[in-house]
C-alpha cells in the first residue's frame, strides 16, 4: 500500500469520526478554564528572578552587542528569595555559545532555554545544582526553572543577551 493511499485512508477515518463523534459544544472553553484555574490554584504563575551582579563585561539587554563580539566569557548572578543562580556565558564562534549554570540550593528541577523564534531546549539540573547548554545561537534568551516539587512555582531570569 502506497504512502499516499495510507494517508488518504487515515484522512477518511479522521473525517468520519470528526463528523460522527465530534467533541461536545464548549469543551475547549471548559478545558481552557480548567487548565488556567489549575495554574492559579496551585500558585504556579511564573516568578521572576533579579539580576544582582554582572562580571567580566557582561552584556545585558539594551547594551551594545560589540562587547560580546570580543568573545570574552562573563558571569551573571540572579537571585529569587533563597535561590542563588550563577550563569557563565562563553561566547563561541561557529558552533554557538555555551552557558554553564550553578543553582543553589540544588533541588530536582528542569531548566529550559527560552529564546524568541526558536524551539525551547531543556535539561535536568544535576544533584550538584549544575547544568549546561552548548551550541546556543547569539541573541536574547531567558532561563526558566521548573522545580519538581509542586509547592514551588516555576521561576525565570529576565532576558539577557549572549
Amino acid at each position: 500500500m502506497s504512502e499516499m493511499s495510507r494517508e488518504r485512508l487515515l484522512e477518511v477515518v479522521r473525517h468520519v469520526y470528526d463528523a460522527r463523534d465530534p467533541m461536545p459544544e464548549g469543551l475547549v472553553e471548559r478545558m481552557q478554564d480548567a487548565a488556567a484555574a489549575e495554574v492559579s490554584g496551585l500558585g504556579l504563575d511564573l516568578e521572576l528572578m533579579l539580576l544582582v551582579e554582572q562580571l567580566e563585561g557582561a552584556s545585558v539587554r539594551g547594551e551594545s552587542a560589540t562587547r560580546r563580539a570580543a568573545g570574552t566569557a562573563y558571569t551573571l548572578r540572579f537571585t529569587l528569595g533563597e535561590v542563588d543562580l550563577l550563569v557563565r556565558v562563553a561566547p563561541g564562534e561557529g558552533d554557538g555559545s555555551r552557558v554553564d549554570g550553578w543553582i543553589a540550593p540544588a533541588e530536582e528541577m528542569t531548566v529550559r532555554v527560552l529564546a524568541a523564534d526558536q524551539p525551547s531546549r531543556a535539561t535536568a539540573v544535576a544533584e550538584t545544582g549544575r547544568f549546561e547548554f552548548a551550541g546556543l545561537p547569539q541573541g536574547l534568551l531567558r532561563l526558566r526553572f521548573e522545580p519538581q516539587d509542586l509547592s514551588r512555582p516555576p521561576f525565570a531570569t529576565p532576558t539577557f543577551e549572549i
Partner: protein
Amino acid sequence: MATADPSADVDASAQGTREVADAPGSVWERATAAFDRWLADDEEGLSELVGVMTPVLWQVVRAYGLSHELAEDVVQSTWLALVRRQSSIIDSAAIGGWLTITARREAWRTAQVQHRADPTQDEDLAVHLPQQRSAESAAVERDGQDRLWAAVNALPERCRRLLRVVAFEHRPDYATLAVDLGMPVGSIGPTRGRCLAKLRVALIEAGDVDE
C-alpha cells in the same frame, strides 16, 4: 476506475468544521509552538495549546469506548496533568505525543474500571447514535459521508479503535498502544496494515476510492 476519491468527500464536507481534520503533523507543530509560548510566560500559549489539542484528545479518548461524560473527565485530567507535570516534558517538540499518551493511559484505566463495574455496557453504543447536524450540511453530506461511515463502522472493533488512534496521532507510540489493545508490540504495524487494507476494500466496494 471508480467514481470518487475519498479526499473529495473530505474536502467538500470539512469546510467550516474544526481543525482536527488537519494532518496530525501540522497539529503537532502548532502544539509545540503554543507550548513554547506558554513556557515563555504567555498565558495565551496555554489557551492555544488546549484549543489545538483538545479535539485530538477527544477523538483518542473516545476510541476507548468511554461515555461522553467519562471522556470529558479524562481529557480534563490530561490537562491538569500537563500543568502539574510540565517539568517532566524535556522536549517541547514531543508535547503532542506526551498529551495523547497521557490521555490514552488514563482512558485505558478508566475503561478497565468501567468494564469491571458494568460488564454489560455496550462500549460502542454512543458512536452508533446519529449526531445532530444542520439540515443544510446534512443534506449535502449525507450520501458520501454515510458511505464512508458505513465502511469505517463495518470494520472489526479492534481495527476501528486502532485506526482511530493512529489517524489522529502523529507517529503514535506503539509500545503503549500494544498494552492498551492487548496486542504484542510487533503486531501493531502489521495489524494497522491489515485494517487499512480492509478499509480500502470496503471503500472500493462502496465506490468511494480508485482501485
